[in-house]
C-alpha cells in the first residue's frame, strides 16, 4: 500500500436551508497520492480546493464516494483520531489556529490531545520548533510574532503529532513575501524528510516546487500531472482563470521569438542556469 491517501469518486455537497438546492463543492474527484510525494493543488476561489483538504482530514465527510487515509475510511469513527494524526492540517489564518498564549504550549497541544507522555511531549516540542527554526522564540506570545513565524508555529504544532502527511490549506495567503518565503522553505524541508505534503494554494509560483500539480475547477480535477507537463498547457490554464508561473510565461514568449527554451524549465533557478549555460 504505497498510496497514503486515496480519494475515490468523492462528491461533497454543502447543505443549505430547506428548499434550497445543496451546493455541490466537489464533483466526482479521484486522486491517489503516493507516500512521500509533494503535491500542489491550485484553483480559483470556489473551485473546491479547501473543501477537498477538509475531506482528507475528516473535518468534512463525503456526501458520496470515499476518502481513505492510510487505508482507513474517513467515515470510520473509531479511526477518526488516527486519521487526523496521520494527516495533519495547517490552515490559512495564522491567528485563528493557535490555541495557547505561549509558543511551546501551543506546539504541545496536539501531542497532549493524543495522550503522549510528558517527557516525550517535551522532546517532540523542542524538535518540532527546531525543525521550523523557531526554537529561540519558544517562550514568546504568538501575537508578538510575524505572520510567517505564526504559520511556522502552526506547522510545528502539526509536526509534533508525527504525521505522515501534512495538508496545508493556503498557508501563505495572508503572509508578506518574506513570510511566504520562510514558510515555503519549511514545507520543502518537510518534503525532503519524507513527509507527504499536500499544498493548497492560489499562488502559481509555489506549485513549481511540487512533484505533481492538480488544478481544480468547479469541484472537478481539471488538470493533473507533473508541473512541466501541466504548464506546457498554458492556454488551458488561462481558460480556467489562472496564470501560469512567471518563468513559464517568459519562456513561452522567448520561444515565440525563436529562442529555444526547453519546456521543462519552470523555475527562476532553472531558467538562470539554462540561459547562463547557453549564452556563455
Amino acid at each position, binding site marked *: 500500500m504505497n498510496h497514503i491517501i486515496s480519494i475515490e469518486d468523492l462528491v461533497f455537497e454543502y447543505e443549505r436551508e430547506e428548499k434550497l438546492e445543496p451546493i455541490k463543492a466537489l464533483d466526482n474527484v479521484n486522486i491517489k497520492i503516493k507516500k512521500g510525494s509533494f503535491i500542489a493543488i491550485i484553483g480559483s476561489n470556489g473551485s473546491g480546493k479547501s473543501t477537498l483538504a477538509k475531506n482528507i482530514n475528516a473535518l468534512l465527510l463525503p456526501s458520496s464516494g470515499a476518502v481513505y487515509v492510510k487505508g482507513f475510511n474517513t467515515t470510520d469513527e473509531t479511526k477518526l483520531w488516527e486519521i487526523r494524526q496521520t494527516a495533519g492540517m495547517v490552515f490559512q489564518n495564522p491567528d485563528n489556529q493557535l490555541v495557547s*498564549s505561549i509558543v511551546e504550549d501551543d506546539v504541545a497541544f496536539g501531542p497532549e*490531545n493524543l495522550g503522549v507522555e510528558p517527557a516525550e511531549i517535551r522532546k517532540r516540542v523542542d524538535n518540532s520548533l527546531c525543525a521550523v527554526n523557531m526554537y529561540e522564540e519558544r517562550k514568546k506570545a504568538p501575537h508578538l510574532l510575524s505572520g510567517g513565524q505564526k504559520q511556522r508555529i502552526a506547522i510545528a504544532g502539526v509536526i509534533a*503529532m508525527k504525521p505522515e502527511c501534512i495538508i496545508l490549506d493556503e498557508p501563505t495567503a495572508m503572509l508578506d513575501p518574506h513570510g511566504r518565503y520562510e514558510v515555503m522553505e519549511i514545507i520543502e524541508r518537510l518534503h525532503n524528510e519524507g513527509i507527504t505534503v499536500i499544498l493548497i494554494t492560489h499562488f502559481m509560483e509555489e506549485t513549481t516546487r511540487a512533484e505533481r500539480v492538480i488544478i481544480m475547477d468547479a469541484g472537478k480535477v481539471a488538470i493533473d500531472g507533473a508541473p512541466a507537463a501541466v504548464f506546457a498547457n498554458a492556454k488551458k490554464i488561462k481558460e480556467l482563470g489562472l496564470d501560469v508561473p512567471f518563468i513559464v510565461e517568459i519562456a513561452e514568449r522567448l520561444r515565440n521569438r525563436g529562442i529555444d527554451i526547453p519546456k521543462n524549465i519552470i523555475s527562476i533557478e532553472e531558467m538562470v542556469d539554462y540561459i547562463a549555460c547557453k549564452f556563455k
Partner: protein
Amino acid sequence: MIRDITLGQYYPGDSWFHRLDARIKIIWTFIYIVSLFLIRDFWGYITVLITLGLIIGISKVPLSFILKGLKPIFFIIIFTFVINMFMTKGTSLIEIGFLTITKEGIRNAFFMGTRLVLLIIGSSLLTLITKPIQLTDGIEKLLSPLQKFGLPSHELAMMMTIALRFIPTLMEETDKIMKAQMARGADFESGNIMRRAKSLIPLLVPLFISAFRIAQDLAMAMEARCYRGGSHRTRMHGMKMKKRDAAAILLMILYVTLIITQAQGILSFLMMSLIQSA
C-alpha cells in the same frame, strides 16, 4: 485605554515566584484578597505592603509595569476615596457647606483607596508571574474535585486559556474595524454619552461577527489537532509539588498568621510595645 490593562497579562521571567506551582499562587492570591478585608490598622497594611514588595522585588516585574495597570481604574479609586471621605460620620474636621470631612472619613478613605490599589496590584501580580497555561492548569486542578458534582473543570480551564490567547487578537480586530469605520466617516469621540454609545454599534456588530468567525476557525483547527475534551489528555508540564512549593506553603501560613494576629489587634500591640521599649 484597553491596552493599559495589565490584569491578565504575563510578564516572562524565571524567578522563584515564576516557577512556583500555580495552585499555590492561586490559593495565596485568594487568601491575599480575603486578608485585605480583614486587616484593620496601619500594621496590617505594612504586612501586606512588605509581602507584596518582596514578591515584586524577587520576581523582578518592573513597578512601572504594575502601576500602568492601575490607570484604567484610577477614576474608581478617586471616587471611592472621595465618597469615603465625605460620607463617614464622626468628629468633623472641616465643614464646606453641607459637606463635612471627618477624621474617621479621612482614615477610611485612605484605607479603602489603598485597599483597592492593593487588590488590583495583588491580583494582576498573579497573572504577571504565572504563565497563562499554568494558571488555567492550576484552576483546572483546583476545581477538579468539583467534577463529581458536575462542574466541567477542564472545559472551564480551556475556555479561559482561549480567552486569554484571543484578547490581543480581538484587540487588533477592534482596532482594524475602528479604523475602517473612521475612514468611512464614523465618529467615535464627540457627542454626549448616548451619541457615543450609539456610535459604537457599527464597531460592535462587525466585531461580534468576526469573533464568531474566529471561533469557528479555531474550533476547526483544534479538531484537526485531535482535540476531544479533557479525557485522554496528558500535559507537557506535569504538576508536581517541589521543595520550593513546600517553602511557599510555609510562607503562606506565616502570612496568614500575621494577618490574623493583626486582625485581632495582637500585632499592633506587640509592635507598639516594641517601639515603646526601644
